[in-house]
């Protein structure tokens, strides 16, 4: 490959940003990777195990960390991009630390924000003890501290799918796609951690579309005896023994159902990140009805934006899993290389 000349700024140091930065550097480009937090890794560092094979999240994280150890990569952590200008074919980016960076191409990998579960007021997150989010549970797994607020082991656990997804009330009509499989993965891990506990998933549709997901679902039923009840939890309350009381319709029985639980896990969905939204507004970048960046072409240009030389990768365009994010980042790298090589600029 002939030597590439060019400086690419990658905004966001999560899975997509790290993978893309590494690949771009290997291709000979000089890369500036900007991450708003002090640590790289984005949401990936919160995961205990990934699906479908329940490989430790740290394995992938370590791979990504190694990826970006490269002379061509300049790291700017604790720093973010508030806006950019395009002058001719050059991008001028201003960072929150006051730096001005010139770039030949820009890749946005600003990722997603986890839906804030307290916005579903009826579930009492932040009000009732032991109503936790999927991210909280993942953290409990990581820290090997699976306990109720009072220190006891939970005996009966409910998992609510679609929290903040497919829900007009919170402004998100789209499906976050990964909560179903996360629910199944976490249900299995709950059973593995606490052999005697009972686990119930409350779902509207089981969207197990990824490779080996349906197989996990089957395992959850066959090997782990996890209960699946079709109905969206309507309300969570509390009784005098501090047990959670949930109300749901068992839609397949056509009757309301009431259940007492020790712990309730809310499968929080994915939303366009606040940082991404700010950039979209500042840079006049097109967004979809779901508020994520709208790619230039759904089939042939999922890494391209409405501005030439500015690209997207990962969950800033739509909910996707780690596998898809890495592929998407590699796709962006190919698009950027083509853009620079063909001297389109």
């Amino acid at each position, binding site marked *: 490959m002939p030597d590439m000349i060019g400086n690419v700024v990658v905004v966001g140091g999560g899975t997509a940003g790290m993978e893309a930065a590494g690949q771009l550097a290997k291709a000979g480009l000089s890369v500036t990777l900007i991450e708003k937090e002090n640590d790289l890794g984005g949401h990936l560092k919160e995961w205990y195990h990934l699906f479908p094979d329940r490989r430790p999240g740290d394995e992938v994280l370590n791979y990504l960390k190694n990826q970006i150890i490269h002379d061509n990569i300049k790291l700017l952590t604790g720093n973010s991009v508030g806006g950019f200008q395009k002058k001719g074919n050059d991008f001028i980016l201003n960072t929150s630390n006051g730096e001005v960076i010139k770039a030949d191409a820009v890749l946005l990998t600003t990722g997603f924000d986890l839906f804030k579960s307290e916005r579903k007021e009826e579930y009492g997150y932040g009000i009732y003890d032991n109503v936790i989010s999927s991210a909280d549970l993942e953290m409990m797994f990581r820290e090997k501290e699976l306990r109720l607020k009072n220190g006891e082991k939970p005996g009966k656990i409910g998992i609510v799918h679609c929290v903040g997804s497919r829900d007009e009330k919170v402004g998100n009509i789209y499906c976050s796609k990964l909560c179903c499989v996360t629910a199944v993965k976490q249900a299995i891990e709950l059973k593995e951690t606490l052999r005697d506990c009972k686990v119930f998933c409350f779902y509207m549709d089981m969207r197990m579309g990824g490779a080996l997901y349906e197989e996990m679902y089957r395992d959850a*039923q*066959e090997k782990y*005896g996890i209960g699946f009840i079709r109905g969206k939890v309507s309300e969570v309350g509390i009784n005098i023994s501090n047990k959670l009381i949930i109300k749901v319709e*068992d839609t*397949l*029985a056509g009757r*309301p159902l009431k259940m007492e639980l020790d712990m309730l896990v809310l499968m929080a969905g994915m939303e366009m990140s606040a940082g991404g939204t700010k950039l979209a507004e500042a840079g006049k970048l097109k967004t979809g009805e779901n508020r994520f960046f709208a790619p230039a072409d759904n089939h042939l240009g999922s890494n391209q934006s409405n501005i030439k030389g500015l690209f997207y990768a990962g969950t800033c365009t739509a909910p996707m899993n780690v596998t898809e994010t890495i592929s998407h980042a590699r796709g962006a790298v190919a698009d950027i290389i083509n853009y620079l090589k063909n001297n389109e600029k």
Partner: protein
Amino acid sequence: MYKFGFSLTKARVINYESNDRSIVDFILEREPSLNLCIECGGCSATCTTGNYTNFSLREIHILLKRGENEQVRDKIKQCMLCGKCSLVCPRGVNTRNVVFLAKQAFQKFTGHAV
């Protein structure tokens, strides 16, 4: 009722905690494939009885799992044990055996043959 012209009504809510799931536990121990049901309704669609009555094997599965035994006991008599349901089940649940075992369980736990 007599005095007021109306009376308290029994709640239809499935109260998971107060329901008795000994019947379904008995079945699951002997026929764990019941756990694999995904409520697709294939069994009900092909069911000989279901085509002529409101009998639904899919619903029976749900009611058993929730411990709504009274309702199942009344309904399950209608099954003719033809076994067509087992042929169509995409998850390989031995649906016919589930019915068999349910009948056995009712006999064992309630002393009433069904």
